[in-house]
């Protein structure tokens, strides 16, 4: 065993989880099949806003194989017609009198198989009285707007107002500013569209009195606590298992009505209940992301020094405030929108508004509204450059927070841990040959061709906690790891976070391998089962490595400290005479006299010093002292087809800095995936409603996910600026590319058209949108 390579930090170890996925041996929720299992299917509203006059379930109930039809009225008797959201709002599980969005859950059919359930869904008769829909937040705020939520005390569609920064100082700076640019930006409603839709298998066992729920959950522990609070079932009698999860991206953080109804049904029928959404249900009713109406202004000097940022946002939250932000941050971490630029003041205001659209506002591959923040500042900096006739690279160099300013206190109160922004941009520009591209662009322009170069130099903010600032429903946002080294030196690691494709089973094993000198193949990482894993807040917002990764390193170091005592005993020296070097405890000055962790582990169970507890285990609940601030510099080159308006990505280079890199291959994979999603948001994806509030993009024919054909060949590069406070120097990376890519693309497209007087285009930049601009500017073919 000892002769094997450790494959610790920095090694591109192949992912431990891949063999089972590649061979089709993953176990997703829909793969769970239990004896006697019944199937649930959901009746959904054809209206965005309507009063329910009558629900007649008799025809459905009479159909063969139909066991039950559950309505809101029945749930109300069990006090389950409503449930709390993670944002302190409440949300209908099933309605008793009205529906507030298209495809809202109206009733649930329980049947012996999925086909019968689907037929019975059509047989449930619901009589609606349509009410006027409210489809955008500006209409919703008008005094005569229909009330989306008459159940609330406050009789308006306004949910909350939230501010960050210094209003007075910012206003003063704007008042005195030499130059002010302003822009409206809309970041449309999009969907995470995980390949695995949401669902669960809920199984109440009356003999053990235990409720087990296999669930598509990014946060099984938090969900267990919520389930316990909602149902009154003691927490130790609930077990939530997240098996393999086919993509989360924030969409599997909220609790959906389906989970609750299935749980109610298993408690009622004492049989396992399976509920799996189909694709349209997933796209139509599950949590959306974004939907931010932004008005942004930058104040600057005439020579291009940014002095202040002022942003007003009207946020469309749909019918319930069911975002999944930390409690104190109804607008997430949007206030990081001063970005990578040093400025004197900023003031941010966000108003949350109800509309008759599905709830959400989830952090789609983005730690809580950072995509919106980065889009805002990266667009505004380009707009300022355009106003001043400056090169977009030059204006960035001029305004970057400089390396010596770290830790840097941002005007909205964040403390950026580390960074070297000029180095990242420099590297990007040199790698892609920026000056040469600018020359080429000038030549092409002279020939009437449209080519654009876009830059985005973003700062991310990931890894919530620390606990003094971050909690979800009061539960602090720490995370955990528990390590057991068995007598033969094989290891099991259990973590409080939950992988949905990020490669935790590999990365976390490498952390332990590095810290303990045990080859990575002898380390198993388990997660996702609340009966066995330590309590944690789950995986989203790029928080796993910053929190649970740190917990894993700290727990491993605790093991190492105990191992030192055992090694000293075995080598008959004082613990102080030992040093940890080349993956073993070695006697100082006599490195050949050493003990490996495997030898020590065996002794921990067979030959431990008197007075020392046997065994070799440790755990850590890690409360990070700060967030981590990954960053990057992206450059994108596009060509525009004047005959169709099509944007063709010729080249895209991403320079990322996520501090210490644990597995470079996984990091690169995360970057490729994130760039692809970011590209899709910029060019393809949008949830569209018609004037009745009917969703028009409820299939993959209309909700456009990219394929390999649309995806350019990503070029990646890196700089490494470790986090000073993380035990490994690591930061998160999973979301940087989703956040950094859209503005790079938009900046490139706008750059291609800037000589025609174009300053901004809202995403998604569809060919039709571009073509209209080409027509307006007289350059369409």
């Amino acid at each position, binding site marked *: 065993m000892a002769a094997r390579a450790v494959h610790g930090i920095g090694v591109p170890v192949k992912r431990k989880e891949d063999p089972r996925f590649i061979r089709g041996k993953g176990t997703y929720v829909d793969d769970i099949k239990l004896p006697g299992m019944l199937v649930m299917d959901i009746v959904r509203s054809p209206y965005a806003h309507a009063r329910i006059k009558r629900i007649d379930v008799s025809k459905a109930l009479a159909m063969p194989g139909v066991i039950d039809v559950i309505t809101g009225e029945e749930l109300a008797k069990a006090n389950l017609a409503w449930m709390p959201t993670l944002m302190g709002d409440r949300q209908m599980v099933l309605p008793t009198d009205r529906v507030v969005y298209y495809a809202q859950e109206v009733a649930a059919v329980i049947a012996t198989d*999925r*086909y019968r359930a*689907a*037929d019975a869904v*059509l047989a449930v008769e619901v009589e609606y009285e349509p009410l006027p829909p409210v489809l955008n937040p500006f209409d919703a705020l008008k005094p005569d707007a229909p009330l989306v939520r008459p159940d609330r005390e406050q009789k308006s569609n306004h949910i909350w107002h939230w501010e960050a920064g210094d209003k007075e100082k910012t206003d003063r700076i704007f008042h005195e500013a030499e130059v002010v640019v302003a822009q409206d930006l809309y970041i449309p409603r999009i969907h995470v569209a995980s390949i695995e839709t949401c669902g669960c298998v809920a199984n109440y066992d009356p003999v053990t009195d235990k409720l087990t729920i296999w669930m598509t959950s990014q946060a099984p522990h938090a969900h267990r606590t919520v389930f316990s609070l909602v149902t009154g079932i003691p927490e130790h009698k609930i077990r939530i298992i997240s098996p393999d999860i086919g993509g989360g991206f924030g969409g599997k953080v909220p609790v959906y009505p389906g989970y609750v109804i299935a749980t109610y049904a298993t408690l009622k029928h004492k049989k396992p209940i399976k509920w799996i959404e*189909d*694709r*349209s249900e997933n796209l139509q009713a599950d949590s959306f992301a974004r939907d931010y109406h932004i008005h942004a202004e930058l104040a600057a000097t005439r020579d291009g020094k940014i002095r202040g940022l002022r942003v007003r946002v009207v946020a469309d939250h749909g019918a319930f405030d069911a975002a999944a932000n930390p409690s104190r941050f109804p607008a997430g971490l949007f206030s990081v929108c001063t970005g990578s630029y040093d400025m004197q003041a900023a003031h941010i205001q966000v108003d949350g508004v109800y509309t008759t659209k599905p709830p959400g506002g989830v952090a789609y591959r983005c730690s809580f509204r950072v995509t919106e923040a980065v889009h805002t500042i990266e667009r505004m900096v380009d707009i300022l450059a355009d106003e001043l006739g400056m090169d977009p690279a030059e204006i960035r160099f001029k305004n970057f927070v400089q390396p010596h300013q770290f830790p840097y206190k941002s005007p909205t109160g964040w403390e950026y841990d580390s960074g070297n922004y000029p180095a990242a941009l420099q590297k990007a520009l040199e790698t892609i040959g920026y000056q040469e591209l600018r020359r080429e662009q000038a030549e092409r322009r002279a020939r009437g061709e449209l080519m654009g170069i876009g830059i985005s130099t973003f700062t991310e903010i990931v890894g919530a906690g620390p606990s003094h600032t971050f909690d979800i429903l009061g539960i602090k946002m720490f995370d955990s790891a528990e390590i057991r080294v068995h007598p033969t030196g094989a290891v099991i690691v259990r973590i409080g976070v939950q992988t949905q494709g990020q490669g935790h089973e590999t990365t976390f094993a490498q952390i332990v391998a590095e810290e303990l000198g045990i080859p990575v193949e002898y380390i198993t990482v388990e997660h996702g089962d609340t009966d066995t894993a330590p309590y944690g807040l789950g995986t989203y917002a790029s928080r796993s490595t910053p929190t649970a990764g740190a917990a894993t390193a700290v727990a491993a170091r605790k093991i190492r400290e105990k191992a030192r005592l055992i090694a000293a005993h075995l080598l008959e020296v004082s613990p102080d005479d030992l040093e940890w070097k080349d993956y073993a405890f070695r006697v100082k000055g006599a490195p050949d006299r050493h003990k490996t962790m495997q030898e020590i582990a065996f002794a921990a169970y067979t030959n431990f010093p008197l007075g020392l507890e046997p065994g070799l285990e440790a755990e850590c609940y890690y409360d990070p002292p700060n967030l981590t601030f990954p960053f990057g510099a992206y450059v994108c080159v596009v060509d525009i087809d004047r*005959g*169709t*308006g*099509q944007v063709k990505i010729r080249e895209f280079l991403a320079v990322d800095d996520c501090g210490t890199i644990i597995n470079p291959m996984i990091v690169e994979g995360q970057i490729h995936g994130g760039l692809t999603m970011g590209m899709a948001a910029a060019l*393809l994806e949008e949830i*569209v409603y018609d004037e009745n509030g009917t969703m*028009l*993009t409820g299939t993959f*024919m*209309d909700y*456009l*996910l*990219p*394929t390999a*054909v*649309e995806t350019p060949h990503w070029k990646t590069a890196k700089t490494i600026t470790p986090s000073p406070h993380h035990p490994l120097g690591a930061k998160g990376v999973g979301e940087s590319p989703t956040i950094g890519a859209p503005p790079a693309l938009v900046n490139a497209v706008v750059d291609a058209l800037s000589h025609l007087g174009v300053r901004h285009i809202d995403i998604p930049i*569809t*060919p*039709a949108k571009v*073509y*209209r601009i080409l*027509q307006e500017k007289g350059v*369409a*073919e």
Partner: protein
Amino acid sequence: MIPGPVRYRRVRSVDEAVVLLSQLGTDAKVLSGGQSLIPMMKFRLAEPSYLIDINAIPGLDFIEERGGVLCLGALVRESTLERSMLVRQRYPILHDTAEVIADPLVRNLATVGGNLAHGDPANDHPATMLALRAQVVARGPNGERSIPIDDFFVDTFVTALQPDELLTEIRIPVPPPRSGGAYVKFERKVGDYAIAAAGVFLVLDEAGRITQAGIGLTNLSYKPLRAVDAERALLGQYASDELLRYAAELAAQATDPVSDLRGPADYKRAVARTMTLRALRRALERAQANA
């Protein structure tokens, strides 16, 4: 996305299919590649009570030239068409078309016959077949008949096929010398139906004058469209870029698209012009190279 109850029968011959179709009438649907029919059933936009699966009929997937005609069996898969050397060399317009239909997974099942029989103006083969002046062969209880492609598309999802008829074959005249065809499509992403697409087939005389022109347009009207005025404008003319632009403009004017998520109608019309122009240019190049 679960289809309603349906009965299913797999037939082994064209005759068996025709007999069943006449017995079952409009309650039955032919199941070919299933790539249009099954999605419609999953959305319950189609709820046939009977499916007659023709996939096991032997010998209905031929691609061969017979007596001056290219014969395509109804069960030729798009992927087979795409890979056929005969098609690639002699009928590049068909190769162009097969290549841009849906995605490889769909093409492995989708059939050329189904693509026409569905009567969907968004499908790509109708435009190609219009440009090529194909004939559609159908078999019914009273035997076989050949339908000129111009008479085949009646309305959205409605063709000249009778409920008791099976489409068995598509016949395309073998291309003469100095002829060339091309299909050019613009879509939002791969697998999408066209924002606009154009199929063009041109024949030149020895002097380089256009003696035959076929232009079919995809997803630009309630049914597959032939750009008759544009074709006429080309006839007897020497091909110049100006002429091609003029024809493309006429083709665009013939369209009647609807505004939807693919873009507003005027945008689609503009793309129709671009696609027609690009298809004309490519077809012309191929015709000139084919002297």
